[in-house]
């Protein structure tokens, strides 16, 4: 058994060391948050996802599309779980292309639950011309497309990676989004910001084309529940949680299934070990 555990340790360490090269890069330390969906057993908080969607609608959706999400997804289990009736009303506020009519014209129709959020721009060129040359990315998988870099001494890196694997840390993108949205600030005196750019503590290079979506400060968005503080920090966390769900809508099911599988495997493992011992008991080895 000692051999097995040392083998597992060596394997893990090798894996960790070799994956280490990924993390090299930007060295801005992104603070980590406590998320309801953190770690190996965390699950989404429905109310937070609903608030996050509200923030997306009010602060992000005029520039950022959400092309890979269908309206029906917002009703799905493990998501914001809005009632379908509400979503039908929401969908009807959007327009999508209808099928060509008998004369071959493509007209618009209002969206239904099975439609995805329509694109905001005809193409990349149009988006860039509207936004002063910058392209606001689609947000459907943004939480998975961003991450945090390890900051610290290299010899500690493997242990930090092992801890991340062990704790099931997958919220780098969520942490990054929450940090970015709260990272707007006055630039340091030594730094010159180009025309149309904004200073952000957490953006690589510190110059970001996106303006602060919460420039109105606290109380910019009106939450339905008075229990939730109406602050920029809270907005950032809520919308980051919503976008994390958008990137990874099956997280709840994935982690639940994971535990069932692990328990099954552990029991099988114990039984196999006992069986193996019994069989080998008669043999000298």
């Amino acid at each position, binding site marked *: 058994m000692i*051999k*097995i555990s040392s*083998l*597992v340790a060596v*394997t893990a*360490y*090798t*894996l960790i*060391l*070799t*994956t*280490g*090269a*990924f993390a*090299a*890069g*930007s060295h801005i330390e992104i603070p980590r948050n406590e998320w309801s969906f953190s770690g*190996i057993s965390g699950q989404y908080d429905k109310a937070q996802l609903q608030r996050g969607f509200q923030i997306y609608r009010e602060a992000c959706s005029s520039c950022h599309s959400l092309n*890979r999400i269908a309206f029906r*997804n917002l009703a799905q289990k493990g998501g914001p779980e809005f009632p379908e009736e509400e979503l039908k009303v929401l969908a009807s506020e959007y327009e999508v292309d209808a099928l060509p009519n008998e004369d071959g014209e493509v007209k618009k129709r209002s969206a239904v639950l099975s439609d995805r959020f329509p694109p905001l721009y005809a193409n990349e060129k149009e988006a860039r011309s509207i936004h002063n040359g910058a392209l606001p*990315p689609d947000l*459907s*998988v943004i939480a*998975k*497309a*961003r*991450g945090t870099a390890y900051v610290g001494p290299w010899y500690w890196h493997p242990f930090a990676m092992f801890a*991340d*694997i062990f704790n*099931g*840390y*997958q919220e*780098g*993108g969520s942490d990054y989004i929450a940090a970015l949205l709260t990272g707007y600030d006055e630039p340091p005196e030594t730094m010159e910001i180009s025309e149309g750019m904004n200073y952000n503590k957490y953006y*690589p290079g510190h110059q970001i084309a996106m303006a602060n979506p919460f420039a109105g400060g606290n109380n910019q968005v009106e939450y339905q529940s008075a229990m939730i503080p109406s602050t920029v920090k809270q907005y950032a966390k809520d919308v980051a949680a919503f976008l994390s769900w958008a*990137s990874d*809508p*099956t997280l709840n*099911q*994935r*982690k639940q*299934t*994971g*535990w069932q*599988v*692990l328990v099954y*495997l*552990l029991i*099988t*493992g114990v039984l*196999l*070990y006992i*069986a*193996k011992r019994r*069989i*080998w008991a008669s*043999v*000298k*080895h």
Partner: protein
Amino acid sequence: MKAHNDTYLPSGSISKWIDERLPIMRLMHGQFVDFPTPRNLNYMWTFGGILMFCLVTQIVTGIVLAMHYVPHADMAFDSVQRIKRDVNYGWLIQSIHAVGASMFFIAVYLHIFRGLYYGSYKAPREVLWILGVLIFLAMMATGFLGYTLPWGQMSFWGVTVITNLFSSLDEIVPGLGSSIVTWLWGGYSVTGTTLNRFFSLHFLLPFVIFGLVALHVWALHVSGQNNPTGVEMKVKSDGVPMSPFAVMKDLFALVIFVIMFAWFVFFVPDYLGHADNYIPANPLVTPAHIVPEWYFLPFYAILRAIPSKLGGVIAMFSAIIVLVFIPWLDTSRVRSTKYRPLYRWFFWLFAFTCIALGYLGAMPAEGSYVFWARVFTFY
């Protein structure tokens, strides 16, 4: 190992009828039930079975994924997202396949290092070893081709960098390298055409691996298994029948391995990947750092460590090819490293170098350790 007794007794009349015409069950019984296994094998000898499991898992999940995947430059990225979102249990199948590639490489590296440590490449197992190196090569090709399919930024730029390596051949024969690159790409740049043919090859190669594995197992069953002492089994009582002894032990090890596998699949499915690959491929934007999958990092490090492009390419490929010649480079008559104290040092130095190369990826001198670790094997 033909000498072992045949204990196969067909029970029913149907199996007797088949046995007289095509004794395939008898063959299987002889090779996988009666087959004598050294009784002193440790758990490092369980990776063969684990690798078989990995291969089958990859093929089964891969075939299902291929039913939903679209190898088109404009649709590939979205089709992977559809698989993860809309296909029933697509998130699970996709995750197993992506994580499975890494698990396959973990297992194969341990398997290779076990072979190096216990001298499993020495006579009479040279052909067995070379078949193994060929399987490793085919795996690397398959892994590389597969990583292009999600068509994210890292996929696209990975293909661009690696296929461009062939253009260094221009330094030897002008025009040769660029022609090869154009031929690989199916055009003058990496496009949907490249993606389409890579998909086709990624589907083909696992079956080539399967064929090579069959030969690998055949060769193993001709020479018999090596064991930690490196001294061949002499009498029948040195071994035990494969079933149930080795089978049970392999199954137990497999479950331990699958527990680790499941941990990654269910709790950290994206840990082994790169966030940039969730950005759709864009030929106009180069990512800040282009890095291959972790299992290629040591080789990538060698490539980058050498200042000349051609030299780097040669060093990288020779680091793999040198494996083929190990049975002859190592002239020691002692097999197991247990009884070779000096080689033991070099073995661990080599293992350390591989890990360090993977991590640092930039130390020029270290590339040569790979070679020296082998040269010093004959002390």
